[in-house]
């Protein structure tokens, strides 16, 4: 065995232990200044020891590698006093700091690290809610969304050709908001299909989405006055396997030859497998997804594509109740605010940089940096 003797290994200094702020309790944070011996290649890291009295006994609660000066002990019991010490560890040697404490952990009622998130959530929600209220009084404008205008024609075309309609949510789960947006598009499609008496096929990846789709279609058929046309056997579960789902839907496409395919929801790599097969049977295809990576493939293979936000706008667009449109206006106000913020900061930062460069005054630039840092998202 090789023994390395290190002369004068220095302990970590300035050890502090305190209740971890903004947490749910059960945690103490220990902080220290790095040991000057870290420069030695034999130096490995720090062991954090905890005891219930100043005299010990102490036992190890954690270990961090060198270069780190903080550890969170997440195994404390709230209301109990603890004492800590930090041991610098090197190959064949170790050295302990002095003992600190007592420290007691507790839970907080507000997570201060999330203040910026709270402010933005509040502001955006406020705009949306404000315009939902305002929309009750005045009529608001909404721009054309071609993909949604095309729904009626597409359903009509399927009917003329005597072919069914295929609707897919992709791999989205019911716990994805975009699936719920897709449900309202499905509701519209189903209503039209019922009016025209056209068959609607909905193969599913998630059984929960399947049940919600069944409810939606049944409801839409009832509202259109054709509950007799509703067939639960057309809204089925396939498999919860990404490509198994694609294989199954491809099979349905080539055998049922739908006149229209709707791809609305969350899609991954299977997007192009589905859309190319849909194209091969000559279907009109209307896609919509928030998955940015899949949008290029839908753009290439489909006739109409709802890009990101347009999908969320669909429910407001299709059922132009004033409040729904109001929420879109609220979104737009939030966008304007964000754009203004970006322009404002670009100007501020630029003036700061120039002042710093020409006059040597860094006050404005420093203020700018702390302004940007405020946007750091904490845990």
């Amino acid at each position, binding site marked *: 065995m090789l023994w390395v003797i290190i002369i004068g290994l220095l302990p970590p200094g300035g050890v502090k232990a305190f209740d971890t702020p903004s947490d749910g309790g059960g945690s103490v944070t220990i902080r220290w200044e790095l040991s000057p011996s870290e420069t030695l290649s034999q130096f490995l890291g720090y062991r954090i020891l905890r005891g219930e009295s100043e005299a010990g006994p102490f036992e190890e609660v954690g270990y961090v590698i060198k270069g780190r000066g903080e550890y969170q002990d997440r195994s404390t019991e709230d209301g109990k006093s603890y004492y800590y010490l930090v041991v610098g560890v090197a190959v064949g040697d170790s050295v302990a700091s002095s003992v600190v404490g007592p420290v007691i952990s507790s839970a907080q009622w507000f997570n201060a690290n999330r203040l910026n998130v709270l402010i933005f959530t509040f502001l955006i929600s406020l705009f949306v809610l404000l315009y939902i209220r305002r929309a009750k009084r005045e009529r608001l404008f909404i721009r054309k969304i071609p993909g949604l205008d095309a729904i009626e024609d597409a359903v009509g075309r399927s009917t003329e050709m005597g072919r069914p309609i295929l609707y897919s949510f992709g791999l989205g789960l019911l716990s994805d908001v975009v699936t719920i947006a897709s449900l309202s598009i499905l509701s519209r499609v189903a209503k039209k299909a019922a009016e025209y008496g056209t068959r609607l096929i909905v193969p599913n990846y998630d059984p929960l989405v399947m049940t919600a789709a069944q409810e939606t279609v049944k409801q839409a058929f009832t509202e259109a006055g054709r509950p007799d046309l509703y067939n639960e056997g057309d809204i089925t579960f396939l498999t919860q396997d990404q490509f198994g789902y694609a294989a199954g839907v491809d099979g349905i496409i080539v055998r049922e030859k739908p006149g229209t395919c709707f791809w609305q929801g969350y899609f991954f*790599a299977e997007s*192009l497998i589905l859309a190319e097969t849909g194209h091969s049977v000559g279907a009109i295809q209307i896609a919509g997804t*928030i998955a940015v990576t899949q949008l290029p493939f839908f753009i290439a293979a489909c006739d109409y594509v709802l*890009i990101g936000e347009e999908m969320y706008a669909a429910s407001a667009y299709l059922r132009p109740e004033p409040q729904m449109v109001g929420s879109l206006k609220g*979104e737009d106000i939030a966008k304007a605010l964000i754009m203004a913020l970006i322009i404002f900061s670009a100007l501020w930062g630029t003036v700061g940089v120039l002042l710093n460069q020409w006059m040597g005054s860094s006050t404005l630039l420093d203020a700018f940096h702390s302004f940007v840092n405020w946007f750091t998202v904490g845990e």
Partner: protein
Amino acid sequence: MKREVPLAITFITGVLLVVAFFVPHPPLGDLQQRFQIWYSIVAGFTFLLGLDSLVKHHLKKIQHRRSGWGFSVALLISFFTTLILGFYSWFVFSSPYDLRAPFQWLYTSVILPLQATMFALLAFFIASAAYRAFRARNLAASLLLVSAGIVMLGRVPIGKAIWSGLPVISDWIMNYPQMAAKRGILMGTYLGAIAMSLRIILGMERTYLT
């Protein structure tokens, strides 16, 4: 009961989760994880409905001797074989992941090649989609075509051999215009998700209820 209770459940669940996000103190601190576990349990039960739907669909096909009913027989056989082997492996080897378990053999010999081959079909589909869609019809379509072509060539050794500038321009397109567009699209998308969530919590989005 049929409408008001679900709307109330949605409202309460949504509001609680938003509040819990900012309050670390028990019992709200771990509410997000707790609800996600609940969701998994509900999904576990709902799987039964899914399987029921799948099996029923194919049983009906077989019963009425509809075209291709023979394939439905194959589907049901593979379904029940997998299910039985799965539980057998679970109980005999105490885990379906055990490398000795027949379930793993089934995975490598049946599911995996099917998955990989379906996935590999994309190599063909991406070519046919590119051929059809990348036509210089108008300005937007031409830009789509040109940037796809540059990035495509910039990624492989042959692109560099053709012109050493290709990888540089390709990186520039990815890092600037592509990134800016993506950021803009996502900004709108997420604002849309927030408005959508608010409408759900307020009970304005309820196509599956009313």
